[in-house]
């Protein structure tokens, strides 16, 4: 059964006073409103979230949301796939409609993080690592530093090329009213920012963020009755790579990106050249290179050249992260994959405002852990 997206929402991302229940309720209500769907119509509810228990001590948030929006007796479930919880939520929501189990599904992703110190939030996120990694104080940013050094040394890529990813995404984020940071930066600022995980500096990393986003899914048949402008999920797949990051054969290849991308392309019956706009998981600048290569937008070791050439800018051949990416928009863990879905949906239905590009086919790649779990979603305009 064809699955359509008929509505989307995104709260303000950043340092919010609201706690997790309020954040997801805000996005859930806005998504229903955007879709023009009554709460009574929702049969399945999925809530993407990594760590509401660890961050806030609040469990059972899918049931809290069902009650706060009056969705009972809808089926509800919390989806955790670490940083790719949002993409996994898209996968679950797609399955619920494609299988015929639900005719109308609401997905909300959210995370409340900023009340913790950077050290505490980093530790909560690092808890996903293997004990053999965790005992050494390894963090997700340190994986990025190790990988970036290897990439730059092996492919002879200039350090500035990573800074240019940050500059591009910050520039895009200026036009996103929901972004945490709406300010342009230049290469020099990025290159002179404090060192975080050598060779990566502050501006190579996304911030810690509160926020939520929502999407409404239904059958393509029902979508056509409700609205003239909707998008369909034409390809979607998830895949895993090793839990222990150093056990991968090639440190510059994320197997989950390659595998989920290939499966999503195959399901959609298209290839990388058919993608008009993409949202990639730029939790760290180096990840944009690894995903461009894993998704076949670039040959291995050559993504940095496309960035240098402006290929991925908003007016380039393949705009990447028109939303501003996690880099400027912020990264509320469970919300990020849903917010990627928000951006490509808005691009496809022509509601992206000043960020609008010409696009009929869009891709989102949501990366969990350091490539441990990945979901690739392809949407097409109808």
């Amino acid at each position, binding site marked *: 059964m064809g699955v359509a997206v008929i509505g989307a929402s995104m709260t303000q991302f950043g340092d919010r006073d609201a706690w997790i229940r309020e954040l997801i309720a805000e996005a859930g209500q806005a998504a229903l409103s955007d879709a023009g769907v009554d709460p009574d119509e929702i049969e399945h509810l999925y809530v993407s979230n990594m760590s509401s228990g660890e961050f806030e001590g609040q469990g059972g948030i899918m049931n809290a949301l069902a009650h706060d929006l009056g969705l009972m007796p809808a089926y509800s479930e919390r989806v955790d796939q670490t940083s790719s919880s949002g993409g996994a939520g898209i996968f679950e929501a797609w399955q619920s409609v494609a299988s015929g189990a639900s005719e109308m599904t609401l997905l909300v992703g959210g995370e409340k993080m900023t009340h913790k110190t950077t050290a505490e939030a980093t530790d909560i996120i690092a808890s996903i690592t293997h004990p053999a990694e965790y005992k050494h*104080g390894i963090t997700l940013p340190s994986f990025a*530093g190790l990988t970036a050094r290897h990439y730059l040394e092996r492919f002879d890529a200039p350090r500035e090329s990573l800074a240019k990813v940050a500059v591009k995404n910050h520039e895009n984020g200026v036009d996103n009213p929901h972004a945490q940071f709406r300010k342009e930066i230049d290469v020099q600022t990025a290159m002179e920012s404090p060192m975080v995980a050598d060779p990566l500096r502050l501006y190579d990393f996304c911030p810690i963020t509160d926020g939520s986003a929502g999407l409404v899914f239904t059958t393509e048949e029902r979508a056509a009755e409700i609205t003239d402008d909707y998008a369909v999920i034409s390809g979607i797949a998830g895949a895993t790579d090793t839990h222990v990051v150093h056990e991968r054969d090639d440190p510059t290849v994320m197997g989950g990106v390659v595998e989920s991308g290939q499966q999503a392309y195959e399901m959609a019956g298209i290839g990388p050249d058919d993608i008009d706009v993409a949202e990639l998981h730029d939790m760290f600048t180096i990840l944009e290179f690894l995903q461009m290569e894993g998704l076949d937008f670039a040959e291995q070791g050559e993504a940095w050249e496309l960035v240098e050439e402006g290929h991925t800018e908003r007016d380039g051949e393949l705009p990447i992260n028109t939303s501003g990416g996690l880099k400027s928009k912020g990264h509320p863990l469970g919300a990020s994959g849903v917010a990627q879905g928000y951006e490509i949906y808005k691009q496809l239905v022509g509601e992206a405002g000043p960020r609008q590009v010409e696009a009929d086919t869009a891709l989102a790649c949501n990366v969990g852990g350091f490539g441990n779990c990945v979901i690739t979603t392809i949407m097409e305009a109808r």
Partner: protein
Amino acid sequence: MSFDAYVCPNGHVTYPGHTLCPECHEEQTETVDLSDRTGEVVTWTHSTKTPPGVRAPNTLAIVEFDIAEAITDIAPDAEEPDTFVRAIGQVTTDDVETGDAVEPVYVEELRDPDVGIKEPASQEWDGYRFDPV
């Protein structure tokens, strides 16, 4: 304490070990101790924004150990045995470069177990740092 990599009957090696070999799904029945071997730094970083209980900066490296000879002894009939295994860990100094030769040095407590998010009893906290030779 030894610094064990785990080996299955087909000569596949991992550090750390797993319930089943990720390559062929056989049980990992043998070990190779890396503690008295010299490895080579594949890549490294200085991590400055470290979590509670972790030294700052925390210099980390991925290190590759040549274990071809040991695997031939352990799994002589293996058709395509692994020839190297990688490990990750702290470095004893901030002065390290890719390609450096390093030796494992035992440390009783790599970070303070009592201030992080993980339950202290849930895992071990001793292990090996890499010391440039």
